[in-house]
C-alpha cells in the first residue's frame, strides 16, 4: 500500500494567545503554512516557537485565537486528535521505546481489534514509505541499536505512517551531524514535493535559509513578520530575530577592567556532554580582573558544559583551567571553589539551591565545612541563623523568616539568596549563567547592579547569557559560542547586535559583506 496525498491542507492560526502563570508565551501570533512548503518558525529561545507548535498539535489549548484547516475551524484536545486530522510532530526529545523494534514503535498506539500484534503488514507499509522518501531504516532494528539521526528518521516515518500531512519538526538538527542534517533536508524537500507541509522550528539562520520556502519570525511571543526566503538575507533575519527597537544603557563602572591581569584562563578545553558527545572543542579564553566577559549564544551550544568545567562539576577531556595563574585539578568542585571560583548555575532552584531547604540552610551550602559555620563537624545553628538574618537585611530579601523553604520565595528573592551566598565566598572569578532569566524588571535591575559591584571590586565575571540586551549592558568583551566553539571575540564597543546575532546563528562575519 503506497501512501498518497488525497487532500492538501493549509493550516491557519489567528491571534493565538497562550498564557502561563507569570508569562505570556504566545501573545497574538498569526501563522499560516500552505501545502507544499517548508515553513520555518524562527526565533530565539523563549520567543514562543515551541508553545505555538504545542498549541497546533493539541498539547496545549490556546487561551484565545483560532486554528483552522482549509478554512474549517478546529479544536484539538490531544495530539492524537491533531494526528487524526493530519498534523504530526517530531519532538526534540524522541518518544521511542528503546527495547522495541522500529516497526513496533511505529505502530505503537494504533487501535487494533486483534490481541496478537501482526507486524508483517505494517513492516511492508513502512518499507514502502521508507523507499518512497529514501529514508534508510531497517524496520526490524531495535531503537537502542540506532544512531540519533536514525531515531529521528523513525519518528518521521511514524508521523507519515499515521497519515501526517503537516509535519512539525522541533529543532530537528540540534542532535544531528551536518551530514545527517543535509540528508534530512533532502527528505523534507521530497515530502513537500508530494504536497505535504513541513513546519521547521529553528534558531539557526543558515539552515533556515537552506531549507525553507517561507519564514515566520517570532519574537517575545509575537509574530514579527512572514517573509519569502528568496527575498531575504541572513543579516535581515538576524535583525528581525533579535530585534532592534530595544534601547540599552551601558552601566557605569567605577573600576575599569584589567584584561591583562588574568584571573581565569582556559586553554584548549574539550569536554563531553551528559550523553558523551563532544560539547566543547578547543576553548581558549581569558577573563581579567574586574572584567565582565559575556558568552553569547543560543542555549545548547556548550555553554552549560563550559560553566560546569570551570566549576569543577564536569571533567574536561583535554586542556586546563587556571585561576590566578594556577592550574586547578580537573572536575573537582571543592578544588575549584577553594581556588576562588564561584559558579552560579542557570538552574537556581534545583542546582544552585536546594528548593526544599530553608533560607539559612541554603546560605551555608558552600561554607558548611568551615568555621565559623561548623566546628568539629557540628553545625553551629546560632551562627547560621545570624548569618541568614544579616543577608536578608543586607540584600533586602523578602522572606517570612530564615527557616522558610526557598521554593516558596519569588524568583528575584531566590536569586538574591544565591548571589548573596556566592558574593560572601569572596571569589576571584564568577561564572554566572542566565542570571536574570525569568525575573521581573526590578529584580533584573538589582541582579545587574550586584554583578557590576562585584566586577568593580575586582572579581572577573564570565557572564553566560542568551539575552543580548543584557550582554550589551554589562559586558566589556563578548565571546560568541556556536556548536561548542568560540566563534567570535569582540570588544563590546565594537560589537553590533547584528554581528553578534549572525555569529550566534552560525554565520561567520567574514562571509558577509564585511
Amino acid at each position: 500500500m503506497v501512501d498518497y496525498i488525497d487532500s492538501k491542507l493549509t493550516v491557519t492560526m489567528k491571534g493565538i494567545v497562550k498564557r502561563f502563570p507569570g508569562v505570556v508565551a504566545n501573545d497574538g501570533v498569526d501563522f499560516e503554512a500552505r501545502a507544499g512548503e517548508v515553513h520555518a518558525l524562527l526565533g530565539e529561545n523563549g520567543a514562543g516557537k515551541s508553545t505555538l507548535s504545542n498549541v497546533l498539535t493539541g498539547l496545549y489549548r490556546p487561551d484565545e485565537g483560532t486554528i483552522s484547516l482549509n478554512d474549517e475551524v478546529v479544536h484539538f484536545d490531544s495530539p492524537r486528535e491533531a494526528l487524526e486530522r493530519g498534523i504530526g510532530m517530531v519532538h526534540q526529545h524522541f518518544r521511542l521505546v528503546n527495547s522495541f523494534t522500529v516497526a513496533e514503535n511505529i505502530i505503537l498506539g494504533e487501535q487494533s481489534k486483534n490481541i496478537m500484534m501482526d507486524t508483517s503488514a505494517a513492516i511492508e507499509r513502512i518499507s514502502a514509505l521508507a523507499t518512497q522518501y529514501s529514508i534508510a531504516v531497517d524496520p526490524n532494528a531495535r531503537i537502542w541499536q540506532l544512531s540519533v539521526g536514525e531515531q529521528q528518521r523513525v519518528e518521521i516515518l511514524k508521523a507519515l505512517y499515521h497519515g501526517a500531512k503537516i509535519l512539525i519538526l522541533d529543532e530537528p538538527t540540534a542532535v544531528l551531524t551536518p551530514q545527517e542534517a543535509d540528508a534530512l533536508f533532502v527528505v523534507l524537500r521530497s515530502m513537500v514535493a508530494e504536497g505535504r507541509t513541513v513546519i521547521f522550528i529553528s534558531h539557526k539562520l543558515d539552515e533556515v535559509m537552506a531549507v525553507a520556502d517561507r519564514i515566520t519570525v517570532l519574537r517575545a511571543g509575537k509574530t514579527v513578520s512572514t517573509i519569502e526566503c528568496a527575498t531575504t538575507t541572513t543579516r535581515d533575519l538576524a535583525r528581525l530575530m533579535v530585534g532592534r527597537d530595544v534601547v540599552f544603557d551601558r552601566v557605569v563602572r567605577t573600576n575599569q577592567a584589567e584584561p591583562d591581569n588574568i584571573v581565569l584562563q582556559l586553554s584548549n578545553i574539550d569536554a563531553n556532554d551528559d550523553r558523551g558527545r563532544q560539547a566543547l572543542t578547543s576553548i581558549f579564553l581569558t577573563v581579567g580582573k574586574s572584567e565582565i566577559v559575556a558568552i553569547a549564544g543560543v542555549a545548547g551550544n556548550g555553554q552549560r558544559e563550559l560553566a560546569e568545567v570551570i566549576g569543577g562539576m564536569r571533567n574536561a577531556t583535554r586542556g586546563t583551567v587556571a585561576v590566578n595563574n594556577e592550574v586547578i585539578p580537573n572536575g573537582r568542585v571543592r578544588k575549584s571553589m577553594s581556588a576562588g571560583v564561584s559558579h552560579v548555575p542557570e538552574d537556581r532552584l534545583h542546582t544552585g539551591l536546594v528548593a526544599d531547604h530553608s533560607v539559612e540552610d541554603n546560605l551555608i551550602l558552600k561554607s558548611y565545612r568551615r568555621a565559623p559555620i561548623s566546628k568539629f563537624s557540628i553545625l553551629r545553628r546560632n551562627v547560621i541563623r545570624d548569618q541568614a538574618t544579616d543577608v536578608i537585611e543586607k540584600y533586602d530579601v523578602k522572606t517570612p523568616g530564615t527557616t522558610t523553604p526557598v521554593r516558596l520565595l519569588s524568583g528575584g528573592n531566590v536569586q538574591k539568596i544565591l548571589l548573596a551566598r556566592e558574593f560572601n565566598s569572596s571569589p576571584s572569578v564568577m561564572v554566572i549563567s542566565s542570571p536574570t532569566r525569568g525575573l521581573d524588571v526590578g529584580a533584573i535591575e538589582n541582579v545587574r547592579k550586584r554583578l557590576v559591584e562585584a566586577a568593580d571590586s575586582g572579581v572577573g565575571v564570565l557572564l553566560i547569557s542568551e539575552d543580548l540586551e543584557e550582554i550589551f549592558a554589562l559586558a566589556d568583551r563578548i565571546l560568541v559560542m556556536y556548536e561548542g566553539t568560540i566563534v567570535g571575540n569582540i570588544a563590546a564597543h565594537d560589537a553590533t547586535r547584528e554581528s553578534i546575532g549572525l555569529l550566534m546563528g552560525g554565520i561567520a562575519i567574514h562571509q558577509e559583506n564585511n
Partner: protein
Amino acid sequence: MQSPLRLERRLTQPKWLNWGVPLLSLLGALILGAVVLMATGKNPISVYMRILERGFASTDAFSRTLISATPYAFTGLAASVAFRMGLINIGGEGQLYLGTIGAAFAGIAFADQPTPIIIAAMIICGMLFGGFWASIVGVLKAKFSTNEIITSLMLNYIAAILLDYLIFNSKSYWRDPKSFGFPTGKRLVEGAYWYDMSFGPITVPFGFLVAIIAAGIVWFLYNRTRFGYEVSVIASSPSAARYAGIRTRWKIITVMSLSGALAGLGGASDVGDFRHVLDSKGVQIAGYGYTGIVVAALARLNPISAIFVAVFLGGLSNAGYALQGPDFPSGLVGTLQGLILFTAVAGEILTRYRIKRQTHVAEGASS
C-alpha cells in the same frame, strides 16, 4: 468525567500534620480492622480492649511490651537512617541476622571476660557484621548504580541461608557440638547476658536503653552535624549536592553501613537480651527487619518517634502472643500491623497534598 474533589500540592506542611496524620492513620486502621473483626463474627470493641489491657495496661504487660519493642526500635532506626537519604534499605532483616552472628561470636569468644567487656564486644561485633552486610549494598549502588531495593532484599535470603548453614549444616564455631538430634547454637555463659534494668515495677531491657541512646545519636547526627546536612542535601536535590561538591557515592556507602550497623545492633540485643544463643529459626520467624520498615514509615523517619512507634507495635505483638487462642486468631495482629502501614502510607499523601473541592479553573493551567 472529573471528580469533584482533587488533590492539590501543599506549599507548606503545617506542624500539626506531624502528629495528626499518624493518629488519623491509626484510627483508620482500627476502623478497617473492626470491619475485618465483625466479618469474622467478633466484637471489635472487646478485642481492642483486650489488646490494650494485655499490651499496655499493666506494669507486667508493659515490661513484656518493651521486650517486644526493642528489636523493632533498632530496625526502625536502621530503616529511618537509610530512608532519610532516599536509600530504600529493606535488608534490615538480613543485617539483623548478621548482627546476631557477630554478637554470638563475641559472646562465645569472650566468655571468660567480665560482663561489661562481653557486652561491649557483642555490640561492636553485631554492628560490624550488620554494617558489613549493608555495605555490600552500598558499594554496589555507589559503584554500579544497582537498585538497592533488590540487592538488599536478596541479601536477606542469603543471610537466612548463612544462618541455617552455621547451625544446621556445618560444624561451625557457633554450633553446639553437644547438641544431638535437633542442632542448636552454643549457649552463651550467663556473664554474657545483658542487664535487666528496673525502673520501679517496670523492667527495661538493656538493649532498649541502647536503642534510646542510639536514637538520640542519630537525631543529633542528622540534625546538627555536617554529615546530616550533606545527607539532607543529597536526599532533596542530587544535582545541588554535585554542585556543592558533596561526595554522594561515598555517602551512599556510609549511610548504608550505618543503617546496617543499627540493624546489626538490634541483632546483638536479640542475642544478648533475650535468646542468649544463635537461634537460626527463632530470629527468622520474628521478622524484625520487615517490621522496622513499618516503624520507620509510621515515625515519618524521625528517630525519636521511632522509639515510640516501636513501643506501640511491640505492645500489639505482645498482646498478640498473650491472647493467642481459639477465640483470638494469631494472624490478627499481623493484619492490624498491615492495615496500620497501609493507612500510614495513604496518610502520607495528605502531608504533601491537600484535598480541595473542585472549583472551575482554567484548564491546562495546572502544569
